[in-house]
């Protein structure tokens, strides 16, 4: 299924030109043309749109004897899907391999694109101006005259021809079987990008249409409890007065001003839940650009998932085009179609579990296996009795939970104290306690850090590597094995789930949103959870991570606990505005 040692002659380089169906972003691709080059025989396939849609299978082999080579292969796999072609057995994505090879480099002369990769290896490539011109032509859509067809095919072939020298330059250093696994993940990505997330398009359209009015009402309504906005503008002096009255100590900058960045608001609203509405308001006023979201004509959010784009190898889709990049309260727009259901499945305390399994810290393993690592940590530290539950000791559990999360984020005592709303000393005590209870983990972490900075490289268990630069934050470095192996785990789970026919709508950090007909969703969730468990066992040498699933059946909406209040508030405002509009229309 995966070629262990393939040669150049086994490869077929390939590129498609495409645009979103009907030219609308958010739609699946409409294939315009394809060029493929069988390196072994030297044969080219140059095929334009109509002919491609007539083909039931690709005009070349895609079985286990060949490797399909592309740059950013998920796009090519999406075109395979759009054409209804069987997926290749072996895919090599030179983008993923280039990212892997240069991951951590602070400077790449031409960036991460195909041209950038060519430049990195000192290879000739086509001029970027020509590239833009051809992309515009592809996006314009049919009809194409003879000259345009020929130009598009030539342009497509120029990218295919560029792949051969790039492949030759990269192949000797490519970790072949694991590279093909990364390639296979592109097939799952293509399926997710094709499926997309179902959106309540009517409410979405209303939100877009009335957003300016909603914002005004939202400020009036939310600010009634704070009094920090003046003429629709947040005023820091008014906020300072509010903080004094509410007796909330607030972090300040070196110059003594209130820290008003997003992270500070996030931390402080966790310590002081009364601030949550204000945080949500600021968040949506500052960031929300609803019209940037990619929603297809069938009401599904689809966008590039940008696999392997982060330093840890995680997906990094656009925060404005991808639904899960928006504020959490907006997830209420996610709604399964009639007769369908969706399920949000995430690994339980994934990073903690990975840390426990990799470091083999007995206390940490026991805490994970208890099912509630935060409470178990409090028990191990002797802070609560052994028969404590999360209902009997919610505050203690929360403190120890925040401490665990703080160590995962590499947070210091000051930030943890801010998040807990306690003196810094308490935060220091908790962090010290973590080091004492999980001593084996910390010894492992120290050793890992020393080994990493000695070799200037660290790699996941499936070969995603980081070249360590001198300016890399030591705390990020210590957290790399947890984060990057979590990304590996997600990739493994997606590959397994796709092969079992699970319809994945979107990956969401350490979670997956799946979809199935309402009467099949329970079974689909079981299968998906089994895949996630298998993925963890494969990665962690047999240690299985559990997962939690939340099923949403039509016509219910997907709400995050912390976001529903704000969603309800916005919906009330929207209803009011629409009623007024109707009244005015009647008058």
């Amino acid at each position, binding site marked *: 299924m995966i070629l262990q040692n393939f040669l150049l002659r086994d490869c077929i380089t390939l590129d498609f030109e495409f645009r979103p169906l009907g030219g609308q972003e958010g739609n699946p691709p409409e294939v315009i043309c394809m060029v493929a080059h069988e390196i072994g025989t030297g044969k080219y396939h140059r095929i334009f749109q109509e002919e491609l849609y007539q083909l039931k299978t690709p005009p070349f082999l895609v079985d286990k004897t060949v490797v399909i080579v592309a740059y950013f292969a998920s796009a090519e796999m999406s075109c395979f*899907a759009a054409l209804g072609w069987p997926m290749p057995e072996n895919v090599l994505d030179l983008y993923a391999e280039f990212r892997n090879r240069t991951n951590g480099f602070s400077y790449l002369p031409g960036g991460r694109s195909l041209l950038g990769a060519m430049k990195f290896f000192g290879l000739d490539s086509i001029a970027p101006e020509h590239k833009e011109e051809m992309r515009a032509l592809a996006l314009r859509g049919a009809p194409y005259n003879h000259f345009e067809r020929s130009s598009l095919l030539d342009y497509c072939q120029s990218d295919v021809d560029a792949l051969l020298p790039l492949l030759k330059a990269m192949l000797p250093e490519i970790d072949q079987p694991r590279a093909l696994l990364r390639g296979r993940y592109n097939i799952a990505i293509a399926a997710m990008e094709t499926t997309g997330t179902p959106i309540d398009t009517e409410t979405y359209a209303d939100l877009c249409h009335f957003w300016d009015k909603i914002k005004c009402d939202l400020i009036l309504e939310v600010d009634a409890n704070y009094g920090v906005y003046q003429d629709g503008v947040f005023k820091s002096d008014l906020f300072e007065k509010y903080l004094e009255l509410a007796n909330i100590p607030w972090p300040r900058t070196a110059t003594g001003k209130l820290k008003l960045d997003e992270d500070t608001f996030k931390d402080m609203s966790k310590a002081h839940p009364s601030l949550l509405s204000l945080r949500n308001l600021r968040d949506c006023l500052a960031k929300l650009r609803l019209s940037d979201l990619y929603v297809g004509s069938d009401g599904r959010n689809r966008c590039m998932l940008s696999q392997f784009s982060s330093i840890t190898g995680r997906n990094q889709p656009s925060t404005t085009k991808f639904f899960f990049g928006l504020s959490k309260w907006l997830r209420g727009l996610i709604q399964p179609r009639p007769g369908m259901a969706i399920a949000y499945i995430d690994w339980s305390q994934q990073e903690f579990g990975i840390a426990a399994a990799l470091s083999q810290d007995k206390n940490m393993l026991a805490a994970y296996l208890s099912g509630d690592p935060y409470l178990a940590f409090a028990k191990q530290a002797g802070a609560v009795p052994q028969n404590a539950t999360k209902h009997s000791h919610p505050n203690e559990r929360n403190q120890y939970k925040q401490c665990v999360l703080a160590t995962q984020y590499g947070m210091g005592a000051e930030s943890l104290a801010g998040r807990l709303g306690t003196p810094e000393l308490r935060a220091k005590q908790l962090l010290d306690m973590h080091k004492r209870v999980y001593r084996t983990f910390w010894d492992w972490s120290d050793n890992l850090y020393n080994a990493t900075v*000695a070799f200037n490289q660290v790699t996941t268990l499936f070969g995603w590597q980081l070249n360590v630069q001198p300016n890399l934050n030591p705390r990020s470095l210590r957290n790399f094995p947890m984060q990057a192996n979590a990304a590996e785990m997600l990739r493994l789970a997606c590959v397994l789930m796709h092969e079992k026919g699970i319809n994945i709508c979107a990956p969401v950090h350490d979670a997956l949103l799946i979809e199935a007909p309402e009467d099949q969703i329970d079974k689909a969730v079981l299968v998906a959870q089994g895949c996630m468990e298998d993925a963890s066992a494969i990665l962690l040498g047999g240690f299985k991570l559990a997962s939690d699933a939340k099923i949403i059946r039509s016509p219910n909406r997907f709400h995050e606990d912390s976001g529903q209040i704000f969603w309800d508030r916005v919906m009330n405002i929207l209803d009011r505005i629409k009623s007024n509009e109707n009244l005015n229309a009647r008058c």
Partner: protein
Amino acid sequence: MSEQAMVQQEAINPPNESGITLAKNTSSLLSSLRLPDTYSATGGITQPLKPTYGKLNKHRFCRVHPDIEYKLRCLLVDDKENGETYLAAPNMACHLGSLATAKTIRLAVDNSGIPKLIGEPDIDLSGRRNLWQSSYKDAIDQAENNWVRVEANMKAGQYEITKSSNDLGDPKWPNQSMEELINDAFSGRIIDSPDHPYIRQIQGRI
């Protein structure tokens, strides 16, 4: 073209009947691709912390090593004027007189793993009651088996001993021998010759 493409699009994710077998094979294949875990490869050896000499930490709970290997009787000289404590060789006693005090050096460690050498006073054979000394000795005795915190109570003229109400786990003892610890703690502060600057100073020699 567009509609046809859309129809074909919807047909891309048929549930795979043989999916389970396929995924089983995939699982074992994926397992074979896992690289060996090298995170525990030694990248460096952290050198042990060097101890200091002083009193038990009044802010942190401490333990004292109970073993005989970590007890050393010796002479100590407290130079209060310069804030230094010297370790003196036994044959220097005649030069130091009452400035040298016989004590037993003990190894202590606090609950954050920081080692410290402390001086355990001898029992005062003169019969005078010295609550400072006896309470300190008591604290050391207790610290052999319990986590204790010691703080001077000036009004009561003795040390106040607080035993931890929680189990703070096992102490993290340093790996060095007592000799190594003493050499580290008293490096450059050992009086082993009559020409040592301290002896010259107390004898008024230039």
